């Protein structure tokens, strides 16, 4: 598919990522400036009552938006809302999903989420892709 407009209602675009690594989260900490150690250092995560380090919610949200990047000539993400629904751990295998739920002349509305290898939603929300 080369154009987002060619999607039919109900259709889903998806992408499965490589397993989450510590380096992914170290890189995101550096790039975003969010150095909360529960995302990178095992002992700090344990001290916070977690079984291990967890991904930044914003890392997952950032990844999800890349489903729309190739379509920059058609429009842009005008609204993007996400609820953080579950934790992401090292080695989790995440799948990004965007389902077209409504289509008008001005915009494409998507239901979006990221699921892990147990089919559990870790983030969920909506994207309004406004067309030019």
């Amino acid at each position: 598919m080369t154009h987002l407009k060619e999607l039919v209602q109900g259709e889903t675009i998806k992408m499965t990522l490589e397993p989450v690594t510590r380096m992914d989260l170290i890189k995101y900490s550096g790039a975003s400036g969010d150095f909360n150690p529960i995302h990178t250092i095992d002992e700090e995560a344990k001290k916070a009552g977690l079984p291990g380090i967890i991904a930044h919610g914003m890392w997952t949200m950032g990844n999800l938006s890349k489903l729309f990047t190739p379509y920059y000539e058609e429009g842009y993400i005008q609204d993007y809302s996400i609820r953080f629904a579950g934790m992401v751990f090292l080695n989790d295998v995440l799948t990004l999903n965007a389902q077209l739920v409504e289509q008008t002349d001005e915009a494409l509305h998507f239901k979006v989420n990221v699921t892990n290898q147990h089919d559990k939603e870790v983030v969920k929300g909506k994207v309004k892709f406004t067309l030019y």
Partner: protein
Amino acid sequence: MITEFIGVTSEKVKNVVEKELVRRFADSIGDLHPIYIDEETGKNSRYGKNIAPVTFPRVFRSGEVDGLNLPNKGLIHGEQIYHYNRPLFVGEEVYCYSKIEDYFEKEGSTGKMGFLKMKRYGEDTEGNIIFTEESIIIITETVRRSMNV
């Protein structure tokens, strides 16, 4: 009380959408698309320049809300909401400020939880809003006690 801060805004801080920061950010979310990093692709696009990923405003600085001291540990990020009037361009100046939109408490299974809604505004050099970035932060009972609120 945090409720006293509802409606309070920070001062505006100038940020620049730096090319190298955009490259690193795009790399860190596995989205090294040429529209973010390749000048030629930017020039040939409808924008005539490179753009930044939608969640990039996370890296911007906005001023502090005087007196509101949130701990840097123990906060839970509940929701995040972006609204854009146009994409963000690489190289442009963005003036950011934050506003405490709302604060309320709810009884949860682990005690009373606080919900803090903060919104960040990004303006261009003429004062037009480019984007808003809203975060809902959950403050647990334990953290609330340590903050003495």
